[in-house]
């Protein structure tokens, strides 16, 4: 199993940080040895829809749950809708962005 994964961004809830067509490389290792932190941009499994991944930013950590939000708040479905997420849903932390 690789410690990195490649994702392509669709749509705009993380603008201006991430734009549609960008690629991100996520690293799975930081969260093996440490915990997700406020400010991290993460890719995680959708808490309600199978086989769907989302990319958001962690804005708050509380009791081992992570509140996530899109940087483009008015166009983001995130923890305001589906609540905080558990660590086991997190795929990895974004560490490289390849701009379109």
């Amino acid at each position: 199993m690789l410690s990195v994964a490649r994702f392509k961004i669709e749509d705009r809830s993380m603008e201006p940080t991430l734009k549609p067509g960008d690629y991100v490389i996520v690293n799975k290792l930081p969260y093996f040895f440490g915990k997700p932190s406020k400010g991290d941009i993460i890719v995680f499994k959708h808490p309600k829809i199978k086989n769907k991944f989302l990319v958001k930013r962690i804005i708050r950590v509380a009791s081992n749950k992570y509140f996530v939000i899109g940087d483009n708040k008015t166009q983001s479905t995130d923890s305001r809708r589906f609540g905080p997420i558990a660590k086991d849903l997190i795929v990895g932390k974004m560490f490289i962005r390849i701009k379109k």
Partner: protein
Amino acid sequence: MLHKLFQLLDKIFPAKIAYAHCDIPCGIYDPHLAQLAAHTVIRMVDLINELKSPGENPAFEQRKEIMHKINRYTAVKEEHAELCKHEIRIIWGDYFKPEHLEKHPGLHELVFKIMKLGSKARQEINLQAAEELLEAVNKFSEIFWKTKGKDTVRMKAPYPTEREMVYPKV
């Protein structure tokens, strides 16, 4: 160059998609919420204007009651004027394409007008501004449905505002 490399890599090992919008993606757009919001703004202005003065030296209880009503009507007016602007911004920014603009060259100006009228409706107790907002949103709705190949009809809405609403003919 790295992006091009990744695009080539996609042909062999497609990258998974990390969604960053409503996460479906849905492709569902409808100006109906904006129209409802505009009607609500008008209704709140009507309700505020219907309030009667409690007289020269009203009792504390009367003042409390009227202030409570004004606060609530104003809060709802604020919320729905902003909701109207928000719904229009989403459809304008996410749905409309260049080919739509070619057929409807006044669209950007209409959206700008809606933004300004929405703000004015928030800032003032102004029935004319609220009615102009509804009219602009109704025009926006007509353009929207036209781009979907649907004719529209204007009818009196079944709300206390008794103003028009644009409906698609289905």
